[in-house]
Every structure is written in C-alpha cells, then in structure tokens.
C-alpha cells in the first residue's frame, strides 16, 4: 500500500527527495532547507508570507499573477551578498544554497501594491454579495499589501456571468484575476481539460468549449482552487456567509480513499464539505461524489428516535414509536409524557438479546457495517462476546461500484499508468471496511460475509441478529429485507429508515459520519479521526454512546480512551498507542 501512497503524491514530491541541507536567508532569517522547494515554500518555513495567486503546490508553475515578486540575491562563501537589480517571482525561483531574499523592502512593497491595483482594475468590488468574501485572497492581500485607492477613473469593464461552465460551477467572470489555477487543474490533475482561457489581454476570460461543460468527477475542486470569488459552487451559492461557518476536521465516508475533509456547519446544519490537505491520505483534493454526497445526513428518512416493536405491526398497538420530529402538539405532548425513550428501550433490548442468546446459544449473529468507526465495532464485539461466547460476527454488504477511478485521464478518457496516478476514487464505497474486518478478526477466526450470513438465517442457523446499518441509502434489497424480517429477534442500529428498520424489534437511531467520533481506516491502512461536527437529529444518538450504554459500560463514550484500549487488546492496532490521532492520522495496518 505504500506504493499507492506514493502514487497519490504529486510530481513535486518526486523532487522533495531529501537533498543535502542548504542555507537560505529570508528577511535576515537563516533557515536550513533539505528538500527541493521554491522561495514561497522556503519563506513559509521561515514564517514569512509571500502573497501569491497563481501558484499552488499541486499544480505547475506559470508565474503569471506577479504577486510573489521579491528581491533576490546570493551570499557567497566569503559572506558577500550580491542582489539582483530586478525583482523575481518567488514561485518560479528555486531555493539554492546561499539564496538571499527580501520581502519587505520598499521596492517589493511597491510592486505588490501595483500588482494588486492592476488585478483590482476591473474587479467589481461586489464583496457584499460575493460568496468568497471572508476567505478571499483579494480581500486578505488588499488589507495586508494593497493600496487603499484605485486611480482608475474610467468605468470598469463589466462582463457577463457564465452559468454554463458546469453543473456545479458558476463563473462570475468579472471577479476573475486570470491565475489559471482552474485551467491547470483540469489539464494536470483531472486530465479532462475542459476549462481554457479564451481571448487575450483585457478581455481574457475562462470558458469551456461550447456544449462541453466541466462536469468531471473532480470538477468541484476548481471552486476551492479559485483564490477569488470567480468560480463558485452552485450548491453552496448564497446559502451562508462563510464567517458564520464553523469548520470541523473529519474524514469523507464516500469511499475507501478516506479523503481528509473540513465539515463546515452552522447551527447543526452542514453547508459544505471541503478537502483538507493531507499528503498521507489523498493530497489536496476530493471528488464531487464526496463533496456533494452528504445530503442524506439532513434527509427526511433519518431515524430521529429509538423504537421498540415492529413498525409493521403498528396497527396492533404494540409498537411504541418515539420520535421528536412528529408534527403538531400531540407529538410534543407525547415527548413530554415519555421524557427520554432511550433508557427503557436500551434496557429491554439488552435483556431481549441476553434472553435469546441464553436459550439459543450460537444462534445469534452480529452484522457489522463497514460504515462503523473502529471504536464502535470494538464496543459491539466485546459486548456481544460477553453475552454469549458463540455469537457469530458477519460483515454487512460492502458497497462496490465498478473499478477504481484514477486521474489524470488521457484525452480519450483512459486511466493513467500506475506511476502517473494523482487521484483515485475507489470502487469500495465505504470508509472503514479494513478497520472493522481487522477488529472482527480478533474475535472470530474468519469473518462471515453477508451472503453467508443470509444463507445461515435462511437455513435456520441463526434466529436472531444485531444489524448495524449506516448505509446512506438504507437497506433497499427486497430479498435481504425479507430474510432479515424473518428473524425471531432483530435489533437494528441504523441511521436512515428502511424496510429493515421497519421490521425490527428494536430500532436504535444512530448517527451519520458528521455526528459521531471515531477512527476509520482507509484502503492504505491509515487511521483518521471522524469528529463530531453537528448533533444528531431529534433523539438520535451517536453510535458509540448507544453501544456504550447497551454494553453496560461505565462512563461516557470517549473515543481516545477506547482507542488506547484497542491498542492494548488488539496487536494490529498497537500503533494507536495512547489513542491520540493527529491531523494527518496514524498509519495502523
């Protein structure tokens, strides 16, 4: 898997092979640099900010925005400094031994001011309605490096906004600074090359070939790459001003690549998901399936409370539905009457499982889900093993779609050769298959696959089951539903309402990836932490908390101490140590 991690890395990292350390001088700060890097990166290491628009660490260098101009010189062995008479673009200049740069001289400051004045020449200054306001580099650099006034007296050139760029992308043409990051992205990373620059000079514009919009699976990244408000996401457009959003570091559950993400939320409502740079996981980007595929967490089908008794038999009056999303006063009164439905239902579920396992030893099966976090899987396994030593563990269906989708694509749409892969959307559409499998390994010699489990239920080997869901679409396969519904005891821990949860004796309303905390292990064995961004809807709870109480463990669900326990109990997870997971995750398997 290490080969794969390398593959994800961009061409630059090929050059980031350690070299002999060299000394460079940035604003009289002396720093050692051991990898090949440009002056922007070198200055960043020294804590000095060199403003830039067109340069991005994952894209080729064009040095077209002229924002990163600095004074450069060399220091000879005798200590004599010779400065160049002209300014050089820091993004295009490599840091060599003895390189001296000055970023705060009058000459540099003047260049920055003039560049910004030029970039803002035809900018409409419509910050008040621009979605980028608050995270816009034109705003930030204007404050830090710009001049307060424009000397332009002529009316600004106004251009038509373009709605046809892509299904998810809107282009506000007159806000563009022509950094061409988006164009380079579609050429170098996605390989689909839809975007291009048309015309020249002051009428230069970003556009697509007529009738061929930018709809590739990585298209959403151009919105993140755009340093100004020119490219906006249609999905997020005008939904929320960015300064209201609180960002939580998490992991995308869309596929086993496990992209590091930011979940941006406000008042328990997720508004967008952005990629978080993590060279260990996926790099700087993410795919549109993950970026826009989180809507189910606010879907109407979400379970909002636990339930006891089969919903199908609701007419008999046996079922007790506890839900706080019921409409009207009646539901509220019911809520008041039955303060908290959880303690009773958990107690009943626990005794029902214990009773069933006692009378039918070895006939109870636990179906784990590849959407569970490792801590949750561990809690469930230890709990059920404690109830009955003969309980069988099975893996729920592992969603797979076609082949791994690798980028950059060739002009004909063919995948690249293995050493040129820069981004992979994996066929395995779940975040934690490897992690859950590794945990079950510890409790059972061979993990039962889902078909085997269904066969076992059909031929009467198993009479009761604890089924964990977490699938975004719920359980839709009619055959599976019929088989699971035939069980004598069915306990379901799930997030969305489905025919399976309707036919369950106990439904425990769990959480989506944005509402729970725990580690997931990606295709390469990298453990990353999904963090709580919002609260679950209604009376639903985090899966960890439910399992903690179901197992009768003392204390609150604390993922770090559970990880420490996991590291001690299961040798494969020893690398988790005391359970601390950094921003970039821990390589475990």
């Amino acid at each position: 898997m290490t080969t794969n991690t390398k593959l994800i890395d961009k061409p630059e990292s090929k050059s980031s092979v350690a070299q002999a350390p060299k000394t460079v001088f940035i604003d009289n700060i002396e720093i050692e640099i051991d990898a090949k890097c440009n002056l922007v990166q070198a200055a960043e290491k020294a804590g000095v900010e060199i403003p830039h628009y067109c340069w991005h660490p994952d894209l080729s260098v064009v040095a077209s925005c002229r924002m990163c101009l600095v004074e450069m010189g060399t220091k000879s062995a005798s200590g004599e400094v010779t400065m160049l008479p002209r300014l050089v673009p820091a993004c295009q200049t490599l840091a060599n031994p003895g390189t001296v740069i000055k970023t705060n001289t009058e000459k540099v400051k003047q260049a920055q001011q003039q560049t910004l004045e030029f970039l803002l020449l035809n900018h409409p200054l419509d910050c008040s309605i621009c979605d980028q306001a608050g995270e816009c580099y034109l705003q930030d650099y204007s404050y830090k490096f710009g001049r307060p006034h424009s000397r332009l007296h002529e009316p600004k050139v106004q251009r038509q906004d373009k709605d046809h760029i892509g299904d998810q992308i809107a282009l506000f043409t007159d806000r563009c600074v022509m950094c061409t990051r988006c164009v380079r992205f579609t050429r170098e990373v996605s390989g689909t090359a839809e975007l291009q620059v048309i015309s020249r000079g002051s009428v230069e514009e970003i556009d697509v070939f007529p009738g061929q919009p930018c709809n590739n699976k990585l298209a959403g990244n151009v919105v993140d790459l755009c340093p100004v408000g020119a490219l906006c996401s249609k999905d997020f457009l005008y939904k929320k001003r960015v300064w209201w959003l609180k960002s939580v570091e998490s992991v995308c559950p869309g596929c086993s690549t496990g992209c590091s993400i930011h979940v941006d939320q406000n008042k328990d409502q997720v508004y967008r998901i952005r990629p978080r740079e993590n060279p260990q996981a996926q790099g700087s980007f993410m795919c549109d399936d993950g970026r826009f595929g989180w809507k189910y967490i606010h879907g109407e089908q979400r379970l909002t409370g636990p339930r006891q008794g089969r919903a199908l038999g609701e007419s008999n009056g046996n079922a007790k539905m506890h839900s706080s999303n019921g409409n009207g006063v009646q539901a509220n009164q019911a809520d008041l009457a039955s303060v908290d439905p959880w303690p009773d239902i958990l107690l009943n579920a626990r005794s029902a499982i214990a009773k069933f396992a006692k009378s039918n030893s070895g006939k109870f099966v636990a179906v784990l889900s590849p959407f569970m976090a490792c801590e949750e899987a561990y809690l469930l396994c230890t709990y059920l093993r404690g109830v009955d030593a003969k309980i069988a563990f099975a893996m729920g269906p592992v969603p797979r779609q076609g082949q791994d989708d690798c980028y950059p694509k060739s002009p004909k749409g063919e995948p690249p050769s293995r050493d040129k892969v820069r981004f992979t959307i994996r066929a395995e559409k779940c975040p934690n298959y490897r992690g859950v499998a590794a945990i079950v390994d510890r409790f059972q010699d061979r993990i039962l696959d889902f078909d085997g489990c269904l066969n076992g239920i059909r031929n009467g080997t198993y009479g009761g089951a604890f089924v964990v869901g977490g699938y975004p679409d719920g359980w839709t396969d009619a055959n599976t539903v019929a088989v699971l519904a035939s069980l004598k005891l069915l306990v379901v821990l799930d997030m969305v309402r489905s025919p399976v949860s309707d036919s369950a004796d106990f439904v425990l309303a769990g959480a989506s990836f944005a509402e729970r905390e725990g580690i997931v292990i990606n295709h390469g064995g990298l453990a990353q932490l999904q963090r709580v961004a919002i609260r679950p809807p209604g009376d639903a709870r985090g899966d960890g908390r439910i399992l903690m109480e179901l197992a009768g463990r003392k204390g609150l669900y604390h993922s770090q101490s559970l990880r420490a326990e996991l590291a001690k109990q299961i040798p494969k997870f020893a690398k988790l140590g005391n359970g601390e997971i950094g921003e970039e995750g821990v390589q475990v398997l």
Partner: protein
Amino acid sequence: MTDAQTQTNGAQPQTSGETRRAANAEQPGAKKNVKWAESPTLGLMETLYLPAIASGIGTTIRRMFVRNETRQYPEVEPIMPANYRGVHRLNRDSQGRVKCVACFLCQTACPANCISIEAAAAPKDDPAWQDRDKFPEKFEIDELRCIYCGMCEQACPVDAIELTSIYDLTGATREEMMFDKEKLLEVFDITSTTGKDPVRTTSGKLGPASEFVEPQATQLRS
C-alpha cells in the same frame, strides 16, 4: 431617654460602621483603605419636619404659575427628532425593488441576534432584476428582541436598512412583532411619503455595490 441610651444611639452609626469595616477586613480581598460615607445625624430643624413640609407646599404653589410640562400623550403625539432610532425600514431603490443585497452584514453586526435573512439568487428571468445577483428572499426582524442600537444601519454597505422615528410600536401577539420583508418595505413607503426620512442616510448617494454611477466628465479632469 437616658444618657447612656443617647450615648449608645449617638455612637451607633460609628460602631456599625466599624463592625462593617471589621467584617469586611476579614473577607479576603477586602480593601483596607476604604472610605465609608455615613448618613448625617438629624438636627432639631430636621426632626421637626415642618420646614420641609413648608418648602414642599412652596414648590406646589410655584408650579401653579409656570408652564405645564405634561405631555398629553396619546391625545397629542410628539414629533421625534429625525435621528431617533425607532422601527426599522427596508429601503427601495429607484426601481422600487428592495435595495438590500442580502450581504448579511447587519445580521453579523446585530448584538441582539434579531435579524434573520434568507438569501437567494436574483430572478434572472425577470428583466427588472437583470443587474442584480443576489437578493433577500426573506428578511425578518424581531422587533421585540431588537435593542435599537442602530448598528445594522451602520453596517449596511448599500443603505438598505434604516431606523425611523416611529417609536410607538405595539402588537397584540409576538408574531405580529416579527417584521418581515413586506412589512419593513411598508414602513419605508409610509415614512418616505410622509416626509419622515431619517437624517442619517445619504439618500440618493449610493455606494458602488448598490448602483453603478456614471462618473462625471469634471471628475475625470480633476
């Protein structure tokens, strides 16, 4: 009253002051050099009360001959100064559209969290909205929660929200006091037609984000 009693009575304020001081000194963090103000002891004139009654009657008689300050509200309604901060209004632009561009700056600035806006893309199909990108689909102010500080109108980059001199805001229900966009525009219609425009606005002179103003030839030369 015996001598002993008088003594104790006379000394009482002091004693109690000292006990307070002593009690305070024991408390951690009490200031040592606190100066205690004592209530003055009453003299003979004060204990008689008659002079005070006489001066009170004097005041009453004097008021009979000066101008009456009582406002006959609500029979006679006062005219508030033009910079009074009362009920909000949402201004209209020259074409009668809501001037607000839904930038959320008032909502951000509001210390009472009483403004809630929902933005949407301007209806581009409508020729009247061709030059606008974003507009407020909903704009609600909770007039009960508002503290009338005026920070919303200071924050507004397009002079769309203003506080008017309407002060007598009443309602039978809480819902009535939630002013939506239509109601706020209505306040604009009322105040702009009755000559009650607030003075803080730069009415007619708009920022660049609101309307595009053709630069004058004279400006170019200067």
